[in-house]
């Protein structure tokens, strides 16, 4: 967490900070959060050398007293390993803060802005007494006014800052003066707010910067009556009750974690008393509880919940002490199993230490321990993982299987700010990878294996559907990346809009085990007689299948068609891109330039060409 330091002062600040946080971890009362927040504020933490990636700047703008939320967000961020700075805007001055170019808000330069405005602050004070007398048109006009007011503020805000913005929606009141007739009149009080909330959600659905925060849903979950404490409301304009505060903070933390890439990607599961009731080795195939009775139904529901995570791109894996054959028979054949072999990205069923299994799983899946969640009913196994691998998130699974779903549902660690098609199909891809590895073991040569894969490669010019994925590959790929040049989505769009100067290719691979999606990108800079390969990269999960040769062959083919004489490849070595270092040499390019930073390679298209590997079938895009 901390960079190495020579300064003794840092270590003591660090341990003091941890001691303060330990009190909150042990006894998470509001009093302890308050105390920890104020004590940490008095520490001089400027001496700590903190990784930039772990810093987060959060601004709170509100129409009411929101300081208690700042306390929770500060401490929760620290518990998550972050170093927060929090700015609380002056009471009820959110419009001024947004509209004034020189405001403290903009000088604070936040990464995340939370806007919590209560309806009372926007509506005139006699809105409630007048509501029963308003016509449908009056109500609709008011709704438009409110939405336009907020969206006006937000467009100013988005023009001034790159921060992620969370806009609270409105808590629809549980009370209506119309009583049981609230949904019998043309627009009841609850519907009035629900429709505003719907309009806000629709307005920002496609927006990459603004997220509507569903405080209404959260208050319903908590209980709307319990979510406000009227003593504190009248005395100090507090809107969140003491019991509601941690609930709200936890939900916001879902966004903070997503923003700071503290996202868990894989749930590692025990089998006995996790996916089914009872011990398989003792009760046998027909004795375990899965479906049927109340306990068995709870296990089926837990599997359904896990399957819903799988279908949104969270990997599932098994880490269980069992006999492999017996356990696999249940997974493959038990009539009530919801999860099947294909849903598991990796499997460790053996009698070894579970911490060792975890390390192997992390290695096999190519994801860090800090992306893994461990679910096990045994307190001893949980403690073992906590001790040995503190980066792994260990779920405190309740004793009763009836509560398993709730324990998993309350985690806020699986969030990402965007979800691509590739993310959603991630589980499928890992299963295919496992099957490919098994196939490779049965083939004598690499060539024989590649032929048996029945690969199809689809190479297309970038378009508006593929540009987000292309951008993400450009910015994430380190290993097989010839130049490691990073471009923003706007820059990629700009290049793609100038086909006279640039050509951007995407490459998609499908084989007998499934669709890998887009895994390769090339950017060509066009000059009169030569094409320069500005960027050439492939996701590491397809390296070793000679697909890069097919990709290059296609570029050569296109260049020839356009009467180009030379293809120029560039290579910028980095610490990580060794796998790509002999790429141009291996494909018959000659070196024409080299200095410390870059080398250039040339292929004379009149004299040479690159043959399409025979095991790859090309599909024209």
């Amino acid at each position, binding site marked *: 967490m901390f960079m190495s330091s020579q300064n003794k002062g840092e270590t003591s600040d660090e341990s003091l900070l941890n001691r303060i946080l330990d009190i909150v971890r042990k006894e998470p009362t*509001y*009093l*302890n959060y*308050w*105390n920890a927040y*104020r*004590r940490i504020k*008095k520490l001089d933490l400027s001496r700590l050398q903190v990784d930039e990636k772990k810093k987060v700047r959060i601004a709170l703008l509100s129409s009411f*007293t929101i*300081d208690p939320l700042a306390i929770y967000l500060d401490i929760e961020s620290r518990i998550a390993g972050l170093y927060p700075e929090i700015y609380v805007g002056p009471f009820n001055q959110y419009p001024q803060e947004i509209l004034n170019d020189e405001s403290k808000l903009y000088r604070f330069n936040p990464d995340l802005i939370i806007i919590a405005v209560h309806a009372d602050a926007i509506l005139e004070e006699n809105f409630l007494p007048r509501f029963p007398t308003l016509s449908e048109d009056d109500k609709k006009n008011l709704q438009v006014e409110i939405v336009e007011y907020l969206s006006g503020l937000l467009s100013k805000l988005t023009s001034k800052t790159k921060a992620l913005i969370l806009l609270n929606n409105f808590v629809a009141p549980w009370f209506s003066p119309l009583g049981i007739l609230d949904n019998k009149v043309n627009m009841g009080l609850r519907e009035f707010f629900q429709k505003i909330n719907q309009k806000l959600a629709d307005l920002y659905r496609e927006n990459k910067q603004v997220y509507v925060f569903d405080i209404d849903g959260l208050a319903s979950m908590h209980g709307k009556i319990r979510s406000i404490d009227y*003593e*504190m409301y009248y*005395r*100090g304009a507090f809107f969140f009750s*003491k019991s509601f505060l941690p609930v709200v903070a936890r939900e916001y933390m879902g966004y903070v974690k997503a923003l700071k890439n503290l996202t868990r990607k894989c749930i590692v599961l025990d089998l006995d008393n996790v996916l089914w009731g009872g011990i398989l080795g003792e009760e046998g195939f027909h004795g375990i509880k899965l479906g049927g009775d109340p306990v068995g139904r709870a296990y089926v529901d837990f599997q359904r919940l896990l399957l819903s995570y799988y279908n949104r791109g969270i990997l599932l894996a098994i880490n269980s002490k069992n006999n492999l054959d017996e356990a696999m028979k249940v997974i493959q054949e038990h009539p009530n199993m919801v999860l099947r072999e294909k849903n598991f990205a990796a499997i460790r069923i053996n009698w070894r230490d579970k911490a060792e299994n975890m390390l192997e799983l992390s290695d096999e899946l190519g994801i860090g321990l800090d992306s893994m969640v461990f679910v096990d009913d045994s307190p001893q196994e949980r403690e073992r993982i906590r001790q040995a691998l503190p980066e792994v998130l260990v779920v405190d699974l309740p004793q009763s299987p009836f509560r398993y779903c709730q324990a998993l549902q309350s985690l806020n660690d699986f969030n990402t700010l965007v979800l691509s098609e590739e993310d959603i199909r991630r589980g499928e891809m890992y299963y295919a990878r496992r099957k490919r590895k098994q196939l490779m073991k049965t083939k004598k040569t690499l060539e024989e294996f590649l032929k048996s894969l029945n690969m199809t490669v689809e190479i297309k010019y970038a378009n508006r559907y593929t540009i987000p994925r292309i951008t993400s590959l450009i910015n994430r790929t380190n290993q097989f990346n010839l130049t490691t040049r990073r471009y923003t989505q706007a820059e990629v769009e700009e290049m793609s809009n100038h086909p006279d100067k640039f050509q951007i290719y995407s490459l998609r691979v499908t084989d007998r085990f499934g669709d890998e999606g887009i895994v390769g990108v090339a950017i060509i800079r066009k000059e009169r007689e030569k094409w320069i390969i500005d960027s050439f990269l492939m996701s590491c999960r397809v390296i070793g299948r000679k697909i890069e040769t097919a990709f290059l062959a296609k570029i050569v083919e296109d260049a020839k068609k356009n009467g180009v004489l030379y293809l120029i490849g560039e290579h910028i070595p980095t610490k990580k891109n060794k796998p790509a270092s002999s790429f141009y040499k291996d494909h018959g390019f000659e070196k024409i330039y080299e200095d410390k930073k870059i080398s250039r390679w040339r292929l004379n298209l009149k004299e040479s060409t690159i043959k399409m590997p025979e095991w790859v079938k090309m599909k024209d895009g």
Partner: protein
Amino acid sequence: MVNSAEKKLIEVLTKVLLLEESEISDELSRDDVEEWDSLAHLMLINELEETFQITINDDDILAIHTIGDLKKVLKKLGVNI
């Protein structure tokens, strides 16, 4: 001897106002304690109301200026300190 209600009062005072137990005296006032701002004042009241299951009158809330004032109000409401 410090009884359990007194213990609780001390815990709330030390945690809300960042005080050491030895610093607490009846004379200690809002002017002496940097941390005793208006937010902390409300926090103090709210925590004590919850701890002792009482409701403190809003005029009293405004009148409390020292720890002694606070104790007087608590005693009036039947808290055994």
